[in-house]
């Protein structure tokens, strides 16, 4: 990939990759590392992309896979609990929601992010994550229920 083209993609998608990684790991340092790994893979990959949407979906897919690898590592398992409570940016996100999101599983966080923030449809999420549409719906439903329950308790 040419430098200018790559820089454009970084400008456009680095935050998205970071958010996907964060949705999976809920760890800011890990998300930074994952984002760099994923973007590096984009730069050196020889895959022919059809369009920007294809690049975007590929980046999400790779970010999810890379996040899983990170989560599988022994070190990650040991430190995961410590990372859970960390805030992400200097501006503390709405703290109750942050805590509620931390209480979701990574799969639930991921579909919430893709559906509500990235605006993907259930069908599109199903394709990106390679799970059934029913599964996407179920995850969305349960994530919403958990969020709602948590926020109502606050």
């Amino acid at each position, binding site marked *: 990939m040419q430098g200018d083209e790559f820089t454009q993609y*970084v400008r456009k998608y680095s935050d998205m990759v970071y958010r996907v990684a964060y949705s999976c790991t809920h760890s800011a340092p890990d998300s930074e590392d994952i984002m760099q790994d994923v973007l590096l893979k984009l730069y*050196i*990959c020889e895959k022919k992309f059809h369009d920007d949407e294809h690049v975007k979906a590929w980046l999400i897919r790779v970010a999810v896979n890379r996040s899983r690898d990170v989560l599988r590592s022994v070190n990650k398992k040991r430190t995961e609990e410590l990372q859970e409570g960390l805030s992400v940016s200097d*501006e503390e996100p*709405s703290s109750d929601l942050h805590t509620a999101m931390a209480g979701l599983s990574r799969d639930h966080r991921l579909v919430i992010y893709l559906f509500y*923030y990235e605006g993907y449809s259930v069908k599109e999420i199903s394709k990106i994550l390679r799970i059934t549409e029913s599964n996407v719906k179920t995850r969305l439903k349960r994530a919403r229920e958990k969020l709602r329950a948590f926020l109502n308790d606050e």
Partner: protein
Amino acid sequence: MHRIERYYDSIFTKQSPEQLARDIMKKADSSAKKRSFRPLAVVAAAAVVLVGGVTAAAATGLLNINELFGGRISTQDEQFAGELVGAAQDFQWTTSDDDYVINLKGVTGSERDMLLLYEIARADGRPVTEYMTNIPEDGELDCAENLGFDLNAGAFKAGNYRYHYSINDDGNIDVYNLAVTDGDISGQQFYAEVINLYPKQLLSDFEAKHDIFDWAGGADTPAGFYRWGDNEAFDAGQPCDVALNDERIIGLELEWTIEFTYSPSDTAKLSKVITDEKSVVSLNYEKSYGGVWTYPLLRITDSYFSSVSGRIDLVREGYMRGQTFDTCNDIYLLLENGDKISCTAFTGVSSYDRHEKMSSFSVEIQYSEELNGPITAVDISKVEAISINGEVFSLI
């Protein structure tokens, strides 16, 4: 959900995109230079790998028997599995990326022993055994690299099944899928699914979460698992049946993983052999909706509706231990004016009779505002039918 947007707005990398891009490009270029100085090391490493055999992983795309057979056979309710014998020949199916072709050469045998033979070939004619590579980062694999086969053994009561492979003269893979049933197959479901490409990391991910202790879970018994980790439904380390409670298992279509070794030579395609087979018992019988059913899928035994919710009692032929009915279902009510009221189903755990001939579900439903928009009330006198996964059951 504006709060969720604000939440994610507050999550971003602190690195500037330009600097980030520069750093990454620099890192990549630096790595490339290093690589260029060690071609011999790469060759040597490759040789070691090849001598030792490359363990294959898996593949992409989903192939099920319905797709294979297409419109050639009827899959109506009374269809018996034995009628599949001889019903389809030379049916060709092309994978989603158009790179590979599955040729169903035929179905033979008897009701007891059915043999499906299909060939996996490249669309452009090159043999599939030509080469193997590692799994790319996005998990999309060439079909030739690895093959995962999924035969839903749970569809056979106390059934049995085997696979056999051979490399044919064209260098493609012939797969013999022998399903042996135990006793009369009438009334049982026949279902076989080939997962033509699935990322092995899905399996790894699965295995990382569950220490499988019962591979031989039986043809109609979901495997049990010792589970560790964060599932609030179970104590860590306690045996549990994840099929009952773990929604994440629903997305895994893992039944068989076939691993190959590969030794390159002028006749590489002939030297490729199967070295290992291992099974992962399917946990998700609901997926059988995509397969061939040889008996009525289910019937409604009772139903009750209020203006905002309801309950449907169902009976399904076949023994489905602990299957839940709250996922993978598309349920809606059909009103006499043609309106559809989409429902959310939940708490539909199956029970079964002593003879394990059928499973019954009692499914609570709610009229989904999410799917229908605001609902004030449903006039239950106008409910004419229930549709479940596309199958319509008249209540009149």
